[in-house]
């Protein structure tokens, strides 16, 4: 729809509407925008690039805005700078592994339940819908997913304390709001990341001190 709109604007010698997109497969998270009062539009569990026009009524006015949050400044039109998420990830969202031959994958047993939960957390695409939906512009769902994907696995436990301290500190420093457990993030997340991750982040944080 935006491509069609921009084609018309360009043909009329007007500036096209700037919007971000990349994969168009719902996995890169770059196409986030606030559509009719919802991040990624009114249909749950999909990204904007998967939001078809058939989900709207014929002749319906569609209201589109960029994410609104202090740590996500608007660059132009619908494009916001989401590098705040990269900064949080860089602060601790990784594991340190020595270079050399890859170790045997099955040498450290992992419970199936933990592996499944870690996988469910790891599918967060960092689109920012949780921040956009939250009335407090809190990034807790994103940070908690990144914390959880490592905290649930033995390889991630080694640096778990440093990780949670560093990532929460960076999140606060960047000016995101505080989680008040409204549940809007979970309801709007295109990858259905659960609030249980936020409880886990809290536990990990308390354990870290």
């Amino acid at each position, binding site marked *: 729809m935006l491509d069609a709109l921009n084609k018309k604007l360009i043909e009329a010698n007007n500036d096209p509407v700037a919007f971000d997109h990349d994969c168009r497969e719902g996995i890169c998270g770059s196409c986030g925008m*606030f559509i*009719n*009062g*919802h*991040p990624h539009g*009114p249909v749950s569990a999909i990204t904007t690039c998967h939001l078809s026009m058939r989900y709207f009524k014929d002749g319906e006015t569609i*209201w589109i*805005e960029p994410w*609104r*949050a*202090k*740590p996500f400044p608007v660059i132009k039109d619908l494009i916001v700078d989401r590098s705040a998420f990269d900064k949080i990830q860089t602060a601790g969202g990784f594991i340190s592994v020595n270079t050399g031959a890859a170790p045997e994958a099955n040498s450290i047993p992992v419970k199936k339940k933990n592996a499944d939960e870690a996988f469910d957390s790891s599918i967060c695409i960092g689109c920012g819908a949780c921040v956009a*939906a*939250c*009335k*407090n*512009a*809190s990034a807790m769902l994103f940070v908690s997913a990144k914390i959880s994907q490592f905290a649930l696995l033995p390889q991630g436990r080694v640096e778990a304390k440093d990780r949670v*301290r560093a990532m*929460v*500190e960076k*999140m*606060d420093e960047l*000016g*995101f*709001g*505080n*989680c*008040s*457990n*409204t*549940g*809007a993030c979970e*309801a*709007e997340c295109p990858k259905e990341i659960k*609030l*249980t991750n*936020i*409880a*886990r*982040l*809290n*536990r990990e*944080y*308390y354990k870290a*001190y």
Partner: protein
Amino acid sequence: MNKILFSSVSKKFVMAVAGLFLLLFLPVHLIINFMLLKNDPAPFNSAAHFMASFPLIKIIEAILFGALLIHLSYGIWLQIQNWLARPVGYAGGNKSETSFFSKFMIWTGLSVLTFMVLHFFNFYFIKLGLVPGNPQDFYSVAHNLFKIPAYNYIYLVCFVLLGLHLFHAFSSGFQTLGLNHRIWTPVVKVFAWIYSIGIPAGFAIISLTLWLYR
């Protein structure tokens, strides 16, 4: 040290602990208030005297006021940070599905605080000797207040708002403490319903009974 004490997670933790401690006080207050329904003022006045004079209760009272002050100040602090995190709102509104009562926590909380100030003038400040009144006969003080229709209206509205505040606060407190469990979280939510309806309803029943039937 500042990072530990004043991180977003720590502030929420402190606020949750203080809030959950305050939840313990309300059932005690309600049980004592039910003694107002007796025709004999002695049980209520004895309980009020016990609460005002027993040393252990005095210590708990100090902790209670500390918890209230922390819960209030941290709540306002967190809310201001939350407002600052979104300086420009959505022109078309935010229609994200959310826990309904969670949207108004600051306003329901401040409304309850306003009522508490009124409550202090009517009871607690009499006990401290700051306001004229007989601290030995709170039974009569309460009965006289509940004869005033305007007081009952304010009382009932405030307890409805308290109920709305408690409903989100109860389960949110557990989530903040990291106590989210596949089996127990739904149980906590049921308790949240029971508590947030039961406690305000109990206070409202006392108000309505004394106002309409005495």
